[in-house]
């Protein structure tokens, strides 16, 4: 170990940023770190992709012929039009797992302690994480869209509408990664975080309009399905992609799906970012 003198105490005291500038700066540094990790562990990204791609293929070829969408002839090529909005939405909600497992791992490895001992803004570890997840979600959506186009899915209302749909999907995914952040901060191990992050997603995504028409469900379930935040985004995407076959179900949240999608996502972000940051501050590690 080399000479001591040049390491003497009293280096320039770093400048303190304040307010939003500080949050943005620190979040960017953390997001950069998480994105780098993704390039070092490509398995995570690849497996994150395989699941939705598999769903597209299985649902459209195996089940597509059997599921009857009202007002259409049953065929797998009509079902894929109906299905894709649901698959896209389900895919973005899986961002929960990335955030919860990533944050739980940082907690268990002592990295959260490292971050909390640094003069950085409290929220930026979580903001950086969710922003990195957002990038991963965007990448996954692009690949998934290409696969879907290959198996016959089509956009009917033009580029800008489709872009709007992807915007809603990303917003939903971002909202769900805040739920993941809270889960990651609350569980004791990364393994628990992965299952805790995923298990409740199945009822959430299946009791919705994603895979089958809500009208085919028992009455009491229909109410839940219609008001499910997930359904709003799915319906909004169907509208914007031009994938809606037949009339939209005549219930308020489905008739105002775009609005409901934005409101639900913003509400989830507001509640869960507040809870997560609060939890992060007091995390005993």
């Amino acid at each position, binding site marked *: *170990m*080399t000479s*001591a003198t*040049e*390491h*003497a*105490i*009293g*280096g*320039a*005291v*770093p*400048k*303190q*940023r304040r307010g939003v500038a500080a949050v943005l*700066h*620190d979040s960017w*540094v*953390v997001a*950069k*770190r998480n994105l*780098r*990790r993704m390039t*070092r*562990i490509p398995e995570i990204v690849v497996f994150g992709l395989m699941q939705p791609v598999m769903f597209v293929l299985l649902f459209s070829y195996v089940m597509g012929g059997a599921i009857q969408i009202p007002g259409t002839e049953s065929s797998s090529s009509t079902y894929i039009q109906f299905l894709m909005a649901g698959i896209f939405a389900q895919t973005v909600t899986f961002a929960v797992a990335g955030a919860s497992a990533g944050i739980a791992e940082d907690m268990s*490895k*002592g*990295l959260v*302690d*490292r*971050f*909390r*001992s*640094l*003069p*950085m803004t409290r929220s930026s570890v979580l903001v950086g994480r969710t922003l990195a997840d957002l990038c991963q979600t965007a990448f996954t959506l692009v690949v998934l869209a290409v696969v879907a186009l290959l198996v016959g899915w089509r956009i009917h209302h033009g580029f800008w509408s489709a872009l709007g749909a992807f915007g809603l999907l990303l917003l939903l995914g971002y909202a769900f990664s805040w739920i993941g952040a809270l889960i990651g901060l609350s569980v004791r191990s990364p393994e628990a975080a992965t299952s805790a992050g995923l298990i409740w997603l199945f009822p959430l995504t299946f009791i919705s309009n994603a895979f089958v028409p809500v009208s085919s469900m028992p009455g009491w379930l229909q109410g839940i399905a219609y008001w499910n935040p997930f359904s709003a985004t799915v319906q909004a995407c169907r509208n914007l992609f031009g994938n809606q076959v037949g009339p939209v179900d005549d219930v308020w949240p489905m008739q105002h799906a775009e609005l409901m999608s934005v409101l639900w996502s913003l509400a989830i972000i507001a509640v869960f970012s507040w809870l997560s940051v609060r939890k992060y501050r*007091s995390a*005993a*590690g």
Partner: protein
Amino acid sequence: MAPAIQAENLVKTFGDVRALDGVSLDVPEGTVLGLLGPNGAGKTTTVRVLTTLLQPDSGRATVAGVDVLKHPNRVRSLIGLSGQYAAVDEYLTGFENLQMVGELYQMPVRAAKARALELLEWFNLTEAKDRIAKTYSGGMRRRLDLAAALVVRPPVMFLDEPTTGLDPRNRLALWEVIETLVEQGTTLLLTTQYLEEADRLAHDIAVVDHGRVIARGTADQLKAQIGGERIEVVVHRADLVAEAVAALSGYALGEPALEKNTRRITVPVSGGARVLADVIRELDARSIEIDDIGLRRPTLDDVFLSLTGHHTEADQEEGGGKGRSGDSGTDERAVPAGKER
């Protein structure tokens, strides 16, 4: 001058467990305080409070004159922390880890990069700088972790069991780094389970047990308190034990202790290896055959035995100070109900 680290009556409970039961300590600027104690004694909890990671239930603390509870973020820019578990990102390279920490200390990117390279050089990690930390050995990771704590040349540093789990060579290398830091004027609070480590690095030692400081002094003072070195002899034949005790009493500073069924005699001595050689010659001259003989220096366990009357229980405890789970019930610590809440 105000102490660089000062804690008054820190109390922290986790459920029923009183992890800190009124810890007070002060570390004068430019000195090293060794916090010595077994797992679960409260060392890590103390460090976590002083480094703003944990809010105490009561008590107050200042670091470099800044109140830890009132201005945590100002404290954070004045301290470096290197933990028990090497907290570096396994999937970033050594260089990227240090650059990230520099940027989070609010250094400009260029300065953070330059500082990262400087530290990698200093810690002999230059060749490994572009490898991800996952590929580092334990000793390399620990050095990287320590380097991360040094990014802004903090005036006050906290090292939580910096050498636990390291092999002797790496331990020695890390000690040398720490000594350099101290020469440069860094104030250091170091926790350790090893008396030897505290002995070598710390100006002052505080022995912690059950969330309290139970003894405070220099290494020499503590050793004097527990009786220094002893020689241990195991005699081969039971009928010669009495003669062996007689032979040893000539060298003993105090009363020899005898364990009859193991034929083990322990006598306090001073003079180290020279006395040991004399004892061996004497026993040989008297034709007393021995199974084992050795010079024992006081260990942490001896310190504990002497200060508290119980062993360190280090083997039974896990969890690095996050709180001690159920006590054996044999110790005499009394927790007055409702005290300082």
